[in-house]
């Protein structure tokens, strides 16, 4: 009985007892979720446009951030490093299209998936080779990002919001809005959606698939860079971040592989869910459950709704 009390009652008593901590937990989960959502977003973009399950999205995040910080450490001014990093993401998109996608077009999905595995290794090796393997500090101030925190003495306690986290949320929202506008109102954006709906149809209206791929990988690269800056500011920039980026995968399960709103909502659910789980239920089993909670949540969810939150129901035809 006691164990049931600990599982089903006690955590809620704690939540009610210290609402400031609950709010803080939700906020931390929200910020983590925003970052997961951004990684998932880059993934969804690529999956929609080229049908590639891009395992390397997480590594692209680290690679982009590492390029930025690495250049900065080599004495390049922050603004220039940012521009150069964006440029390198563009080159990467070009290279991926030319070297990986083009020769592998029409191969089964799993081959392209594996190719992005190869890309992952390549980027890790290359990134560490050029910039060294030691963790690097994100030049937050030089990039014009805020430091410090906003403290609110409310709810009988303290809720402390890091300015960098607020910035992350704002930038993420701006980015999502920007992407939405881009898709709705530009020629390229419409072309991208056309490709997502039907490759053949897109070809027949005279859009080069190759160009689309470059653009989409580049866009995903920029999203990766933004994510990398935000996460790098929270801890350090190193390839240890790669494991965290795997958390974007359960987000995708929740949100579906092709849904942008799904990626965002899924990210928030996973982010908040795992923080609540770790904070209120984790101590029951000795803590550290955050490493798997997201996956188990996603798995449980899958069993009931295999197509994801916003995915279309798949009717099997024979």
């Amino acid at each position, binding site marked *: 009985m006691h164990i049931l009390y600990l599982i089903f009652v006690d955590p809620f008593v704690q939540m009610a007892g210290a609402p400031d901590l609950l709010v803080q937990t939700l906020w931390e989960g929200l910020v983590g979720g925003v970052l997961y959502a951004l990684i998932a977003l880059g993934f969804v973009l690529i999956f929609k446009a080229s049908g590639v399950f891009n395992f390397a999205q997480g590594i692209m995040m680290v690679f982009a951030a590492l390029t930025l910080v690495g250049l900065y450490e080599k004495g390049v001014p922050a603004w220039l490093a940012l521009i150069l990093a964006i440029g390198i993401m563009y080159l990467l998109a070009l290279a991926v299209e030319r070297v990986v996608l083009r020769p592998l077009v029409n191969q089964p999905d799993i081959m392209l998936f594996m190719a992005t595995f190869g890309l992952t290794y390549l980027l890790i090796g*290359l990134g560490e080779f050029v910039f060294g393997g030691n963790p690097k500090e994100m030049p937050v101030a030089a990039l014009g990002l805020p430091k410090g925190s906003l403290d609110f003495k409310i709810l009988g306690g303290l809720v402390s919001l890091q300015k960098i986290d607020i910035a992350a949320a704002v930038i993420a929202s701006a980015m999502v809005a920007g992407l939405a506008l881009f898709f709705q109102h530009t020629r390229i954006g419409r072309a991208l959606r056309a490709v997502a709906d039907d490759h053949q149809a897109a070809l027949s209206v005279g859009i080069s698939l190759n160009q689309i791929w470059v653009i989409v990988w580049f866009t995903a690269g920029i999203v990766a860079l933004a994510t990398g800056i935000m996460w790098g500011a929270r801890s350090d920039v190193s390839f240890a971040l790669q494991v965290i980026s795997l958390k974007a995968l359960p987000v995708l399960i929740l949100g579906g592989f092709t849904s942008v709103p799904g990626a965002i909502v899924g990210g928030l659910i996973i982010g908040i869910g795992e923080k609540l789980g770790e904070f209120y239920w984790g101590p029951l089993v000795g803590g550290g459950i955050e490493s798997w909670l997201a996956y188990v949540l996603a798995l449980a969810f899958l069993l009931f709704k295999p197509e994801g939150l916003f995915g279309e129901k798949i009717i099997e035809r024979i």
Partner: protein
Amino acid sequence: MFYREVGQFKTSYAADQAIFPIRQDRIGLALILLVAFVAIPLLGGEFLIASVMIPFLILALAAIGLNILIGYTGLISLGTAAFMGVGAYACYKLSTLFPQVNILVWILTSGFIACAVGVVFGLPSLRIKGFYLAIATLAAQFFLQWCFGRVGWLYNYNPSGAIEVPGHSLFGVAVTGPSATPVTRYYVVLCIVVAMTWIASNLVHGRIGRNWMAVRDMDIAAQLMGIRLLPAKLLAFAVSSFYAGVAGALMVFIWLGAAEPEAFNINLSFLLLFMVIIGGLGSLLGSFFGAALIHILPIIVRAAPNALGLSVGSATVEHLTYVITGALIIFFLIVEPHGLARLWQIGKQKLRAWPFPY
């Protein structure tokens, strides 16, 4: 000229149903076994045996397990390392609870425990497919790895949090622990791997293997042949996890000697996946090719600068290994998406036609 089945007529279906119907293949297999059982232990240095062959064979065994799942049944798994871990921890528990029992018995038994755990995590495979299943298996990976670290009973509450392999001997010869010579350990691994490869080969060439492949190629049609999807998929999970479990037990008991939960981390799962894909999906031979490439290539890359008399920093070599591995994966996928096993077949086909290419 030399590799040709012309003139080899089969007079019975039994001969035609054999796994190696062509005589030259059988000779080749005999030669490889001869090299593996005689030449390598006789001529190979300790490094070759302990750091190249033993890991290679163990990884190949795990890759065969994964190949049964991915290559034969079409179920992608990213949790192989965790199932290896289950085998390793099960073997540790069993062998410390009952130290007097023959260690080989426990290594095989731990395969069955991994098998049971694998079936549990295979249950969702009926409802979810493809990449979704791949991500779902990550739940097994992270959850099991957490258990290895958190459930003290599993590692006998050792203060180090690791499992340490006690010495065990077989017919008076030490097979685990420090006093086991590399050659002994090599023979133990080799015998198990050869036997289990033979069994896997029997399975995939018979009814069960055909059922798996039917599920892989067209699950709807498979059902119409009377194949029940859940049992077929669960059997694939079970057999696959059994192989992973035995490989995991061997990894700790014969190869590493001690292990922390991190030994079974996600990177190992990924490496095994590479081996299967690069080697060739749905090919047992490919599992060996893949394991050889992924395990041995970095060793060669690391040894190359020394051998060439270049002085390159060890870190640089490591970075280059990553770059080269990554580039090779992409290269192989482009050149031959069906893996090294297919290259091998094409090679054989060429040889069959040689010296007249048409």
